[in-house]
């Protein structure tokens, strides 16, 4: 259980970082999505791993329970990362349509061209 969760977080993060460094819009969006999945699983695991237990205190008897707080945190994180990905896709699309290029890094500006034009 632990090894599966830990390795899946690791693989997702590694893949996310690799894609993030591709510096083109589409891989970067995918990379950020992978990293947000990884961090969601990570947050979920931060309240310790427990199988088949409900996140509420039982009034009847000594039933054990799992920590409910990380679940609330994950819910917030999922909503935010989902919204942010949507915004990123829109901005990426806008930048692609404006600049006709999907590169994230900005090449050094051409000062000479500017000089030619204004001189």
């Amino acid at each position, binding site marked *: 259980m632990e090894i599966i969760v830990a390795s899946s977080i690791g693989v997702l993060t590694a893949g996310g970082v690799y894609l993030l460094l591709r510096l083109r819009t589409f891989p970067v969006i995918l990379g*950020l999505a992978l990293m947000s999945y990884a961090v969601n699983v*990570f*947050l979920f695991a931060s309240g310790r791993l427990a199988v088949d237990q409900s996140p509420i205190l039982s009034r009847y008897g000594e039933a054990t329970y799992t920590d409910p707080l990380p679940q609330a*945190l994950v819910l917030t994180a999922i909503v935010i990362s989902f919204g942010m990905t949507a*915004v*990123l896709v829109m901005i*990426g699309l806008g930048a692609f349509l404006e600049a006709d290029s999907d590169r*994230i890094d*900005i090449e050094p500006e051409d000062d000479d061209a500017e000089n030619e034009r204004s001189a």
Partner: protein
Amino acid sequence: MHWIILPVILPALLAPLIAFAMRHDITLARTASVAGTALLLAIALGLAVLAADGTTHVYRLGDWPAPFGIVLVLDRLSALMVLLTSSLALVVLIHAITTGWDAKGRHFHALFQFQLMGICGAFLTGDIFNLFVFFEVLLIASYGLMIHSGGKDRMRAGLQYVVMNLAGSTLFLFALGTLYASTGTLNIADLAVRIPEIPIGEAALVRVAVILLLIVFAVKAALFPVQFWLPATYANAPAPVAALFAIMTKVGAYAILRIHTTAFGPGSPGTEDLAATWLFPAAIMTIALGAFGVLGARRLMPLIAFSVVGSMGTLLVAVAAFSPTATTAALYYMVHSTFAAACLFLVADLVVTRRGTDTLRPKPPTVQNGLFAALFFAAAIAMAGMPPLSGFLGKLLVLDALREPGFIGWAWTAILVGSLLTIVGFARAGSILFWKATATTGSATDAGAMVALPPPATTGQVAPVMLALAGLAALAVFAGPVTAYLGATSAQLFDRQGYVDAVLSPVEER
């Protein structure tokens, strides 16, 4: 006492109202936005008066007691930051309206209010996860503002900015997960109780979380080596937005001050050395980088952006000492540099819209060359830290606070040489823009193709710059009372027990 939540509620209610009900009527949206921001300023003044007696006010959301529910905490530092935000916002908003920037795209005022909501919330919250949420609120509004009115370069710089911050947010969540796994709480006061109990031998996981949080806040504060997003972002953002962003870097500095002092700061054997060890060299590098950037910039907007990087370095050098005296100096410099940076961006906007380009090349003078030269000169000496404006006093306070043997060599060299380079950079930019302009009147015939001279700046367009400059002058004139207040602020910040007692005190029965 529902006053404390008003700086969050007011913009949060106003923004959707502007977006839905007033989107077709720019006059109505402008009126509502200015009224809302003025009201926010009034509330912030009220909160500052409320916090001035030194008590830490706590607002329990849903009346849940502290470690279980989310709390908003108002102490002198939070009140100061909210006041700084709202006064800057009003100045910037007037500029955006009188220069017509707000009408160049859609939903400027709604996004502006959402941005204020996020910033005020980040300054008031007493819970780190809640801080993350407010960070996201202010970031998502800033994405919209950053690409306001569009354009190729702005969209691409905006995309870079968004990707950078989304990666930062992911890192923030990893840090929070690690912190929660190792301490079981995310409430700042509760952390301040539990972290000191962790001996150094068992603090490995917490130390990882502390460093991760430091990196996240360093991204926001544009600290070396994660400052590279700032110049492109600020240089390509619409000028009023860049001026408002002057407070965004301070959110990062505030978070370092609050979290790394109250929760992980002096008195916690496991974590107290971390932030100071890493922050100091990074801040020194940031000063150097900002100074060289100012010297090497070939366009006006990146030049100002690099001077912002340099000022963040100076601010964080003082923060890195983690002592009450140095923090007083840091707070004074923070107030100063916020207004100085905003002022420079606003002046630059007035100049650049009339010159047509922000390249640092001699061009024929445009209208009101003398007025703009004077305003730029005043703003530049404020930013570079020359008398008589408050930048000089701010840097003097920082230098004075860093006289311990461990700091003095690096800090004094970096700040003094950095200031000199910044002065040279600004002098060069100013003389190219304004002096050489008058010398090249011969080429004005080339500009005969230009149909008409751009319109001169109206009183309304110059007023915000004047207001900001007056604020800087007042900060210098009333430096005595201001530093006394800031001294009390930093004393309260370092009084961890007072903070913990106020936040974790049991709820009285009603």
